[in-house]
């Protein structure tokens, strides 16, 4: 254990910890824009500079490992003034049109401008990279808002391993870009959107969010992703009962903030017009049961061909559907024995549902003919 003093408060840390992380854990707020606990420190935003006793110049707290007996002051007058100037520099090439910005309310730069009371830059306003890309259905890239914190590049390299983007060019006009500025679909991008998640500004935004509401109007609900078996926690932002966008949350037990393309962007099937909304009975069975007067025969063409044919069915009430189902099953069990019935439970249903389903097959129908696609 290492003991150090930050802003007069004695705190404990493990060897190898970074000062910024230790401060944040101990409730000492050091402003920062390019730091993320899961990424290697970059030190590019310069907001987390602190004064270390004995050091000739301010030190970058995000990349500085703790030393025993360190005495750190995070808010000297000189450092606060410098931070204010740095925000001033950031907003000198970042439009402060927060009122129409979709990031309004969740923008780290906005928070810092508020904190340091900056309404506009005191230098010359000059956009360094006014480039806008809307080249995929998942997210847009609006580089006028980019502050070059490099978190997107780092997450793409250090976490996702896709290396779709990198810094290109140099200096004032440098920009984060795909190779040869090709559309993302032609790059190595895997559209996981983790860059969108950790972008501190409106440079990267989910396409589904644009113009769909302000951050504070949205309700947030967490659940577990329904795709693969990793079990990621996903947070959905909703407005008026509709999902606006999905994102990871630092609370995620297994995934932290990170998600993949399906988890982050693949939720829109849920509101597809194809969703089943009422119980259906196939027309031949319906005719047999006297629910329709038209005789009908199941076509021979493969079920794989063409669109799903709702026309082969007629809607019924739940009571009817349950009754028909139970009657039919009971009839078959009575006639052919319980082992004539098989059941497929689901790797996409809940534990409770699986439990109930197999209980039905075993204790209800009386067969062990229950399986699911674990093997497939």
């Amino acid at each position: 254990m290492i003991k150090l003093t930050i802003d007069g408060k004695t705190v404990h840390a493990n060897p190898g910890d970074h000062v910024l992380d230790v401060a944040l854990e101990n409730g000492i707020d050091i402003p920062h824009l390019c730091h993320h606990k899961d990424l290697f420190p970059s030190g590019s935003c310069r907001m987390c500079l602190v004064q270390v006793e004995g050091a000739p110049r301010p030190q970058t707290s995000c990349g500085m490992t703790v030393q025993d007996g360190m005495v750190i002051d995070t808010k000297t007058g000189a450092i606060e003034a410098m931070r204010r100037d740095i925000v001033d520099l950031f907003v000198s090439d970042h439009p402060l049109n927060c009122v129409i910005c979709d990031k309004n309310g969740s923008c780290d730069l906005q928070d810092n401008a508020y904190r340091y009371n900056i309404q506009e830059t005191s230098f010359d306003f000059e956009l360094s990279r006014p480039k806008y890309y809307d080249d995929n259905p998942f997210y847009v890239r609006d580089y006028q808002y980019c502050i070059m914190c490099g978190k997107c590049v780092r997450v793409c390299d250090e976490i996702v391993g896709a290396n779709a983007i990198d810094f290109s060019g140099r200096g004032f006009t440098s920009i984060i870009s795909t190779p040869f500025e090709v559309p993302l679909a032609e790059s190595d991008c895997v559209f996981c959107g983790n860059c969108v998640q950790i972008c501190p500004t409106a440079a990267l935004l989910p396409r589904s969010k644009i113009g769909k509401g302000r951050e504070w109007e949205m309700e947030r609900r967490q659940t577990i992703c329904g795709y693969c078996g990793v079990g990621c926690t996903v947070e959905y932002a909703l407005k008026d009962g509709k999902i606006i966008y999905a994102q990871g949350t630092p609370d995620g037990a297994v995934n932290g903030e990170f998600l993949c393309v399906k988890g982050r962007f693949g939720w829109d099937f849920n509101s597809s017009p194809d969703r089943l909304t009422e119980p259906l009975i196939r027309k031949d069975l319906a005719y047999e049961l006297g629910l329709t007067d038209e005789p009908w025969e199941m076509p021979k063409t493969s079920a794989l061909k063409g669109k799903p044919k709702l026309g082969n069915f007629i809607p019924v009430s739940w009571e009817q559907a349950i009754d028909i189902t139970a009657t039919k099953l009971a009839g078959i069990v009575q006639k052919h024995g319980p082992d004539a019935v098989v059941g497929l439970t689901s790797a996409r249903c809940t534990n409770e549902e699986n439990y109930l389903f197999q209980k039905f097959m075993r204790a209800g129908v009386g067969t062990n003919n229950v399986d699911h696609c674990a093997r497939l």
Partner: protein
Amino acid sequence: MELKTKKPLKKQVYLGKPHEPPPAELMAILDKFRGRKDALITVLEEIQHHYGYLPRQQLEATARELGFPMSQVFGVATFYNLFQFSAPGRYQVRVCKGTACYVGHSGEILEHLKEKLGIDEDETTPDKMFTLQTVACVGACSLAPVMVVNDRTSARMTPEKAWDALEHLRAEANGNGEVSR
């Protein structure tokens, strides 16, 4: 302020991306550096040396063959001054803007050449004869101001002398001793 509008997107139907094997001369360069993680800049230098610039196709082949992410190749190639992405003219004219040359008014030489050649910095004349560039310092400060044409350094330039030298080169390249106007 540009309004963000969502345009309808075309489906990404796979149209085929034929990966032709790299040409022999490129393979010869790449083969020297296989398995070397630190080789990227050196490879790019050799490619530029061979082709005169960095052709996109060759960069893509380099990334594929040597296992570098394409984004890294592009990022590195755009970082360093030396690399260029379009074919240079026959003569690469570089005006030094080092301190000594600057104090010796090399800026005027550059302006003069820009005006006479009708191109801006880092551009190539339509006849592919001259590419005009600047260079940070060639270390020939005692001879300031200097201009470097391809590998040849010319000392104590003036705007007029520089332009004369270029006209001379153009005439020579056009195969007559006469200076064409």
